[in-house]
């Protein structure tokens, strides 16, 4: 028995709050017209995802989600927003075509959501495997340096190439203008 009688309901309430944070962040990121608000929505969605990772037994990934997505990705996108003029343009010619396109994209995304919803509720998912290792930071570190050492090195190479490519692209654009 749990020492506090309502602790299960408390956990469910926190879970619902985290899910609502994620959903609201995703909706703000997609639907708002000012682009800086949608970056803030992406940050909110990342906070919710960090909470979900905490519920999925991985506090390390929750920390990494906040560190990388909010600390690196959102800040980089905000720099990009400041360097260019990015707001959504006003719908100018033929609003009927705009509305048709909005309906088409909404239909596509609703179809994807309904299909995956049915699959995740009625799919033949295997029953849960018992935890063989503990999944702690120590286990992650050991697996990164033994089993996954080649992808680990490759992703460092990818990051190096990305840094060099970003520098080259931004610098070349400056010389042309």
């Amino acid at each position: 028995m749990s020492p506090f009688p309502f602790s299960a309901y408390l956990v469910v309430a926190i879970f619902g709050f985290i899910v609502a944070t994620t959903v609201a962040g995703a909706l703000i990121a997609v639907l708002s017209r000012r682009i800086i608000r949608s970056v803030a929505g992406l940050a909110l969605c990342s906070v919710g995802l960090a909470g979900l990772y905490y519920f999925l037994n991985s506090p390390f990934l929750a920390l990494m989600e906040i560190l990388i997505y909010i600390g690196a990705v959102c800040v980089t996108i905000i720099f990009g927003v400041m360097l260019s003029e990015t707001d959504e343009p006003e719908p100018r010619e033929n609003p009927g075509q705009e509305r048709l396109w909005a309906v088409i994209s909404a239909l596509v995304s609703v179809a994807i959501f309904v299909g995956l919803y049915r699959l995740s509720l009625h799919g033949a998912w295997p029953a849960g495997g018992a935890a063989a290792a503990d999944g702690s930071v120590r286990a992650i570190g050991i697996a990164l340096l033994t089993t996954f050492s080649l992808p680990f090195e490759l992703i460092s190479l990818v990051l190096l190439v990305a840094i060099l490519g970003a520098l080259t692209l931004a610098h070349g654009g400056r010389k042309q203008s």
Partner: protein
Amino acid sequence: MNVVHLPDQPAAYLILAAFLLATGVFGLLRRRTLIGMLISGELIFAAAALNFMTVNRFMAPDPAVGQIVVLFIMGLAAAEVAIALSIIIAVYRNYRSIHSKELSELKG
């Protein structure tokens, strides 16, 4: 399904990941600026990472593998954002606009 056991059900996380994927696809089709499309792509990345973590938590025998895959996804997302933003800034210098309707010719 009892509400109390909702955080222990894999279906809750899978449905949320499906919602993130659907909103990402919607934004990718609907947005008319390049940075908005980039943000929607980040939502799709997040949906994939959440799916990996759910399957890892509830169905995989080794709980370290999914976390490592999600770490790789985060690293790739960071690299992709850096490259995409430098391309967007280079495009903005050439065209004075990043609205995807107006970027319709190559070799500008």
